[in-house]
């Protein structure tokens, strides 16, 4: 296996790990009730965890 192939395999493994990590994080946050739809800009409801975080960062 050449250096290019090794690099690609490493990249793909990193991609898989990243995908698994994001997936677990999304599911865990949703189950804990910390996740929102991610559509904060279009949202009319302020009292949601994501929006509160966004507002406090802005302040």
């Amino acid at each position: 296996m050449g250096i290019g192939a090794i690099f690609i395999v490493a990249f793909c493994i990193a991609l898989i790990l990243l995908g698994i990590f994001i997936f677990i994080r999304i599911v865990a946050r949703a189950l804990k009730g910390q996740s929102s739809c991610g559509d904060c800009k279009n949202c009319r409801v302020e009292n949601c965890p994501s929006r509160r975080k966004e507002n406090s960062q802005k302040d």
Partner: protein
Amino acid sequence: MGGNIALIGNPNCGKTTLFNALTGSNQYVGNWAGVTVEKKTGRTIKGNFNITDLPGIYSLSPYSLEERITKDYVINENPDAIINIIDGTNIERNLYLTVQLIELGKPMVLVINMMDDVAAKGWSIDCDYLSKLLGMPIVPISARKSENIDEVLKQVEYVITHKIIPPEITYDLKTQNALNEIYSIIVKNISDAEKIPYNFYAAKLLEGDEESAKNLKLEKSQLEAVEKVILKYEKNSEYHDRESMLADARYKFIEEVVRKTVVKNDSEETMTISDKIDAVVTNRFLAIPVFLLIMFLMFSFTFGPVGKFLSDIIEILVNDVIASFISEILEKANAPQWTYRLLLDGVVSGVGGILTFLPQIAILFFCLSILEDSGYMARAAFITDRFLRRLGLSGKSFIPMIMGFGCTTPAVMATRTQENINERRMTIMLVPFMSCGAKLTIYALFAGAFFKANKGLVIFSMYILGFLVAIAVGLLLKKTIFKGNMALFVMELPPYRMPMPKSVLKNTWDKCKGFLVKAGTVIFSMSIVIWLLQNFSPSFHMVDDSSQSIFGIIGAAIAPVFAPLGFGTWQASVSLLSGLVAKEAVVSSLGVLYGAGGDSLSAVISSVFTPLSAYSYMVFCLLYVPCISAFATIKREMGSLKWALASAAMQIGVAYLVSLLIYQAGSLIGRIF
């Protein structure tokens, strides 16, 4: 110079637009009442003020939750100044709140918004004279056009620095005597309410507000004395009702002020353009057909040639440019075969397949933004409320349901405006039946593959079906679990306005950005997880035949359950499971499972499904449980896992029944003819 400022006004008078202009925020703005249901705070760009945008209220006598939020904030948080924004085209009614705010004895600036509309109507407002009569600075603005916004903060700074408090209003003699008498009774409780002046409490007690009596900790003898004064006051009036009498006194004062300062056009009595449009679009016979026609045209436009053309460009970009580029690199590097499968069949098919629907999403939300900004969506709520009320359902459920067309999560949270817990639980259970934006990708794929000629009509039928199922289930729930009266729904119809390009484009862009972020996170991770589950056996060995994979085995186990609905393949079953994480993942997982995207995915599913089973599958996707984020919100808002699980079970049951009915009835009809 700094301080805390409360931004207060009637619903839909432009508070959030002014808030955004003052703070540089991008809070959601809509041309209908009730957009803001909770207070939000931001720092002004100029000056050093913390400004709090409060939900719109008509008076300080609160009836609903958002009105209580505003009243509590003003009384308990004690802001340094109040910006009272009023709609210049509706000045009498808006000044009613102003009069009550004056009673609070706080530094105050009156901002008259929509001055461009006032001028267009041929009216004029003598702001200098009005300022003298009310004893506070007045700033005429047009928040939408950002006209004269800087002056607002200058005047706020001025009233805080010089402690300019508007003088007490003198009402008619009878009212004034009653207020003075009450004032003398409650004056000794002064230490209990240092922040709020007594004329406010005197007026509240005269109205019969029990909460104020509690706040002042009045003794029994004081309460009796106050009651005596009110009874005397009632006797002397034609209304014989304490609340109406004080309202009448306030309106008399307002009428006098308006008579002296506002010059209205003589032709005011004739119908405005808004009235003329409403005569047609809210007509009792025409309203529903017009609403359906508008929705149908919107879907036809969304899935018409423009959307298709843009989708094709993205598809070419994904398949011919990006996929070829990756393939070339892998080939040159002599990379192992599984990396091809991961990157091309997994990531590119999954994420790329979803991206091809971006133009349709953009066009649909562009159209919805235009409808909302113009004021038509408020009419849609009004029309549907009329229809729902006849069926015994509350129109208050409608706003969250309309929001459900965008996303279920905020729609579920929007049910907080409903005070009745049973009504709220019922609405939460119905909202997921509305077709959210994410489900659009599923319809676009299947309708594009099977119903090319009537794509718009088929997708439109999904939206209508979701709404009809919600009504039917709502009626059933109301007759069984949630018996009782429904709350009255009062909604103000805003005037029609020309949609602002900036606001429409901003809303559309926000929606597209949200979609792209979702593609880069949820869909990306789902594609990889699905690829892994589809390519590895339960003993974690890579398999060539995906039916031997973890997903293949799980899918094969549950597939027979869906066979009576017309889609008993393991791939279809598994894609429904992935839809539990996000609805777009249904399409991306089909892409990964079949190793295709865009038109090639359409070609694959055309060979696996029939038009009838495809429709049945779309219906199941429309009605079954929402994504995990929405489910978590339902659990949180219902305050119990039991209710959330019951809601999910009900949705799966309904989805199964309706899909079964459609597929079996369709098959039967097909056999007969």
